């Protein structure tokens, strides 16, 4: 191995390791770490590190320094994708497209940029003043791109999306302010109205509508919801349909890749939650796509269900009964109980997708084992507690009650509240009876 290659490999390994560490930090520390890195955010290695941590950045949205460039990118920030794509998919904007665009704007109108930078500096920490500067910055960008776009291999489509997003920026940003935080769980009546009003406004102003719709699709947990809205309002034009289809397929593919990257670091219940969400999105989106995009999506996600199923089997279904067994031992520590609950919760959440993943049999087997063990614990504890010898609340009695309720809790997490409540009702009934007789 050459020294150069070795150094590159070492750097990549270190970046990946740092990215993993960042993803694992508690929320407060993650935000603090990002704030430490902000002053050097333009460096290539830091950009790549942020790419690794992108899912958490999206979730937690730590404060980032406000620059003219950052405000310029706001209208299409939801469409940004990582740089590991050789060519951008239709509707997506690789992050490496930002720099050539910025260079073109800076060269085309240096006095304009200078004026905007001074206004931003004058605004200082006044959030309202900064927000009011947005439309001026987007107009500046849109105007400068009206006649000529930058040129870079594989980025023509991306530059066109960025230009259209800047032209429609006020409508896009108004929508983002009014809508709930992403990912949007669905499109209710109020949100649907906002989308339609946004489209009408853009059409009246002679502005492009596709970037607006691409941003909405990117912010939805399930892009299929947008298709249903548009179909109800009279369908999508074939050109728009193709772009939205591609966008939606990409959103799902990105999520699948992101899941693959972060799965190893996830606790069992988080793993099950993300797996369930991913498969549900895949199913709903696939149903709503046109044939070409559906085929492409199926191609991209071939083997996904098997892969997710294997992961859940190895990391949840198989180890769960033993983890629960450890928590049912006498006086387990908090970490042991928390781990058992994570497994039980993961089993409970995975039941909806068990059949799709071919795990129904093994999952039911694991739950049956857990239930049997918990029932045995409950029976043992009740036998002890029903004895008339107890003299008030003693530490031994408290320990037995703790073991009893711990077992009920694990049943609840694995099988559901309605089942656990029936068990609880019976247990409470017997304890009450024992207390009255005692």
């Amino acid at each position, binding site marked *: 191995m050459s020294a150069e290659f070795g150094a590159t490999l070492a750097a990549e390994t270190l970046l990946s390791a740092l990215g993993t560490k960042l993803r694992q930090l508690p*929320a*407060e520390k993650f*935000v603090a770490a990002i704030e430490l890195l902000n002053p050097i955010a333009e460096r290539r290695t830091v950009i790549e590190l942020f790419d690794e941590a992108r899912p958490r950045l*999206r*979730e*937690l*949205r*730590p*404060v980032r320094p406000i620059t003219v460039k950052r405000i310029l990118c706001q209208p299409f920030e939801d469409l940004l994708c990582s740089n590991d794509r050789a060519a951008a998919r239709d509707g997506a904007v690789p992050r490496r497209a930002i720099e050539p665009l910025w260079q073109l704007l800076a060269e085309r109108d240096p006095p304009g940029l200078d004026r905007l930078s001074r206004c931003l500096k004058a605004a200082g920490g006044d*959030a*309202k003043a900064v*927000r009011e500067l947005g439309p001026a910055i987007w107009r500046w960008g849109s105007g400068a791109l009206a006649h000529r776009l930058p040129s870079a291999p594989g980025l023509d489509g991306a530059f066109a999306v960025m230009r259209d997003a800047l032209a429609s920026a006020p409508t896009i940003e108004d929508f983002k*302010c*009014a809508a*709930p*935080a*992403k990912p949007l*769980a*669905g499109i*209710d009546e109020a949100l649907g109205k906002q989308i339609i009003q946004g489209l009408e406004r853009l059409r009246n102003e002679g502005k492009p509508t596709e970037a607006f719709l691409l941003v909405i699709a990117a912010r939805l947990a399930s892009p299929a919801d947008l298709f249903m809205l548009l179909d109800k309002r009279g369908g999508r034009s074939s050109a728009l349909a193709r772009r939205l289809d591609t966008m939606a397929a990409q959103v799902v593919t990105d999520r699948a890749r992101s899941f693959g990257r972060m799965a190893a670091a996830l606790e069992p219940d988080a793993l099950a*939650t993300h797996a369930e969400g991913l498969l549900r999105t895949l199913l709903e989106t696939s149903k709503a796509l046109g044939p070409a995009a559906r085929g492409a999506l199926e191609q991209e996600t071939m083997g996904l269900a098997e892969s997710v199923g294997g992961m859940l089997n190895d990391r949840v279904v198989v180890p769960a009964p033993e983890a629960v067994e450890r928590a049912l031992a006498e006086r387990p520590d*908090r970490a042991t*109980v*928390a781990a058992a*609950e994570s497994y039980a*919760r993961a089993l*409970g*959440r995975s039941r909806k997708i068990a059949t799709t993943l071919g795990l129904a049999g093994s999952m039911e087997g694991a739950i049956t084992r857990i239930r049997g063990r918990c029932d045995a614990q409950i029976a043992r504890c009740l036998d002890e507690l029903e004895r008339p010898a107890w003299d008030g609340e003693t530490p031994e009695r408290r320990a037995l*009650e*703790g073991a009893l*309720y*711990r077992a*009920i*809790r694990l049943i*609840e997490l694995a099988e559901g*509240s*309605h089942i*656990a*409540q029936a068990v*609880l*009702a019976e247990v*409470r009934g017997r304890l009450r009876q024992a207390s009255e007789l005692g």
Partner: protein
Amino acid sequence: MSEVGHDHSVSTPELVSSWQQSRQHLLPSTFEERGAVVPFTTPLLAFARVRKDWRDRLELVIGPFAGTAGSYVIAWAAVRDLFALTSHDAYLYEQVMEKKILEPHGIRLAALEAARTGLAGPEAAEAAEHTLAIEAEARVFNEVLIILRVIEEVEKSAAAALMRDLVTEEGQARARRALGAAVRRLDLDPAEFDQRVSLLGSMTYPIGVSWSAEAGRMRRLMQRVIEFGESISSWGEARPPEQAAKAEFCHEVAQHTVHIARRVLEEFDLTMTNPLRLLREWPERGPVLGRHARRLTWLLDGWAAIVELWFEAVGEGRQVVTLDQIMPALPLIPRDEALDEGDRAASNEIALRAKRWVRMNENWRTGLPDPEMTRRLELLKARLP
């Protein structure tokens, strides 16, 4: 179920007086009518309140959901049939029903007992165990501080000597003996006096006496409500207009509550200035102090969870969602619980503006269970004071 608290719109000047009258129905009239918050972990029942109906039966009041503007009132006995309760909630539900607990302090103790079982997870169980232990210590310490103040009023030098050993059990026992001696010197019945001291102690320990070096729980909570108001107001300044308006509204509700709570606390502290006289004249003065203590507990009921929910939300995305979760849960002051006309007008104005924002968690709207929200509510329990 019944729906209450609808808004009424005004179309002509002739309707102004009836509009002003109907505005009053935006608020319950008393704390008891508002109900005490029951800290359920079932998301749809988060911030729900228990109260009595006109036939003395328990009922549950649930805040706005499914895009509505009103609250829903459900017979307590029907709650388990209508909602898929978590096991923890089923346990708590039974406790409230069996013991007919209707006030914040009792609900809090029942909630701690429910959490201690482990049915809301190990974090909540450990926190509940710890809190109950702290509570027991605070109760003892509060009583000892009262005893020392009484001794000080009778015999200053004895109190100073006892103060040094206050933290030990032996020191506390000596303080009680000294109290007994002081009481006999004053020609009072020691057993009766002892009982009054115990009652005074249990009535006041959640608030704590003003001369304690460590502030009592209610005083600390009041401070947290102030911090919450300042934090959310400051956060709102950098947000788009609608979110900024909601954040400022939260700040105003917090400020209004603290404004009234401060005045109640002043009256409480004034009554407690001379505990010897208070104990001597217990039949007349005891109920007055009790009213101040209960009022303060009711004023701050529901705030602990709101404050912790806000400070636990890290990152812009979570904060925006939390703002919408907090809004319908804000404890508005009932119309007859304001101290004067100015406060009453402020309460009504706040209630009117509260009706403008109804935005609920998507899953609540569909009625689907929300495991993530349940887990968040369970972990929130572990952070509550």
